[in-house]
């Protein structure tokens, strides 16, 4: 393989792997910035994946190649509905955030598999016919070297995820809404004193995480597993959560961490086929993403501190 070919696969598989993680970790950032710990990201991804696959299977003949995009939005909507349970439990009913999130995680796969059984009469769905494939970006793929690496085998959902990362950063740190959302996560009493409606903002944070988490699940299911079963989403929600913490509750950091996980994963896989490295026993390559993560965490990352009121219920005094 030429160097350009190697770079192309590494970058394209990093992007494919990272896109769902970026969406979901951004979702987690919104929720936790508003002060609601969202361990339920995994469950939200499951429901997003489920909703998107069912929509895709049903409407692919009518919608053609637009199907995965619309299905991703549907996955996001299903995620919102599901995250509303978490919001209701934690914000209105003041439940413990971890417990509520755990319930979401236990509920989602069971519910989704049950519904698949009801809808299709079997334990897993068929493969979808319209998936997120690779796109040649017209014009840009003519750029020498860079065009080959970035735009001949491009994953559009990943590019979109990166754009949304910067939008999220702008919303959180440069708009009035973002400032209020963060204030609610840092010091809800003070925010409330200044006339900010803590409950509404906390709901908004959780519902945003539902939207983005649902889209994350939808993107995973439609670009990687291409069907839905009990083993479609197994741990990606937790990896996204780790990426959010790794990224210090900052959208750009979360994106960087997601891309890093993706890169580590694809380097390990692709390394096995590169001359020289191919003779290393595969077990070392398989553990390398985790070793690399630990090394980066220990060496390069300072103190990660959550928003101050993260996980603390706000009880408005009378």
């Amino acid at each position, binding site marked *: *393989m030429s160097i350009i070919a190697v770079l192309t696969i590494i970058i394209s598989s990093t992007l494919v792997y990272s896109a769902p993680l970026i969406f979901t970790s951004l979702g987690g950032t919104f929720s936790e910035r508003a002060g609601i710990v969202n361990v339920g990201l995994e469950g939200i991804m499951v429901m997003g994946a489920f909703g998107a696959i069912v929509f895709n299977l049903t409407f692919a003949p009518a919608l053609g190649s637009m199907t995965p995009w619309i299905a991703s939005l549907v996955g996001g909507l299903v995620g919102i509905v599901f995250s509303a349970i978490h919001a209701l439990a934690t914000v209105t009913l003041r439940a413990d955030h971890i417990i509520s999130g755990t319930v979401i995680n236990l509920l989602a796969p069971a519910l989704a598999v049950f519904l698949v059984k009801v809808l299709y009469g079997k334990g897993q769905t068929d493969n979808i016919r319209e998936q997120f494939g690779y796109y040649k970006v017209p014009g840009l793929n003519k750029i020498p070297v860079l065009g080959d690496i970035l735009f001949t085998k491009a994953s559009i959902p990943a590019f979109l995820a990166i754009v949304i990362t910067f939008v999220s950063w702008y919303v959180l740190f440069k708009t009035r809404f973002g400032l209020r959302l963060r204030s609610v996560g840092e010091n809800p009493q003070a925010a409330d004193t200044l006339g900010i409606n803590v409950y509404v903002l906390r709901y908004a944070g959780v519902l945003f995480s539902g939207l983005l988490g649902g889209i994350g699940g939808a993107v995973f299911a439609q670009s990687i597993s291409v069907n839905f079963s009990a083993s479609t989403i*197994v741990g990606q929600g937790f990896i996204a959560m780790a990426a959010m913490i790794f990224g210090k509750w900052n959208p750009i950091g979360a994106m960087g961490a997601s891309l890093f996980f993706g890169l580590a994963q694809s380097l390990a896989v692709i390394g096995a086929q590169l001359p020289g490295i191919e003779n290393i026993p595969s077990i070392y390559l398989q553990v390398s993403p985790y070793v690399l993560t630990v090394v980066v965490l220990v060496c390069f990352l300072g103190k990660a501190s959550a928003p101050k009121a993260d996980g603390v219920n706000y009880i408005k005094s009378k």
Partner: protein
Amino acid sequence: MKKTTRVSLGVLAVMMVLTLSACGAKGASSSDSKNDDSKKESTFSSALVTDIGGVDDKSFNQSAWEGMQAWGEENGLEKGVGGYDYFQSGNESEFITNIDQAVQANFDVIYGIGFALREAILSEAEQNPDTNFVIVDDVIEDLDNVASAVFADNESSYLAGVAAGKTTKTQKIGFIGGTEGAVIGRFQAGFEAGIAAVNPSAVVVVEYAGTYGDPAKGKTIASAMYAGGCDIIFQVAGGTGAGAFSEAIAINQGKASDAADKVWIIGVDRDQIEEGAYKANDGKESNLTLCSTTKGVGATVIAINKLAQDGNFPGGKVETYGIKAGGVDLANDNLSDDVISEVDNAREEIIDGEIKVPTGLAE
């Protein structure tokens, strides 16, 4: 580090373990025994206990149950106690309970479908020496009331290797395994031998994902293999293999349906032709499942039931079901006619014993 961070990290770790251990445990609901029909006759009866997939999993369990039904109908038996029945396991904790129920309902032969039931069958067989058990796809030795049925996956993989070796244009073929070991090694050995027999110059690129449940990793591996010049990949990696299909579809979608550089996947354990369907960029429906190795669990169930009916239950023995016994085979999904005739020849030669397929990788 703040307390909440620590707590959420801790919960994160615990939940990941929980999710992993519970993965796949959300199949069908609990056991499905039928105790209403209690007429006792001196006929022979047989039941199977499924793995967590359930009898509609399009794979192992379904095949076993279809074989059981065919056997039951052939012998004029009814579903239920005294005839034939299944016990569906929703998760691992139900294995023992289901086997217990089957023992108490006095079934003569009880099958555990899949290697996951090995420990459960072993402990029940020790406690119930008068009941005959069969473990499918694993081995329990030294117990006279347990027969082990394993499949000669190396033989079907050999045929897949013949098909791949004859079809490849790039002279480079990929193999994605789940985890390294004797089970997948059997596939790999047969596959490599088949390729070497018909196309000694072809190179086989082997990579193990280390997991059966990570489609993202399967996709990345497939992506690297195709980019590295492979045009056919044999995936023996369960859910990880789904990612290989998605990668192959993504690549082929950008090509005409009859493109010379189209890439292929070889299916495993059952006919995976449905997974390979896609729409090419010329608007035509197409398919990229080259062929699939299949396992006839049903044929095995029928064969052992017949032996047991005649009083020859193969207790304590390990029966290997190969091509000859209908235990394994190759589905010719999209093979060209001359490759099919090549595969048919190889199949005949294996049945006649002219070809001895290696049963595992050389140490």
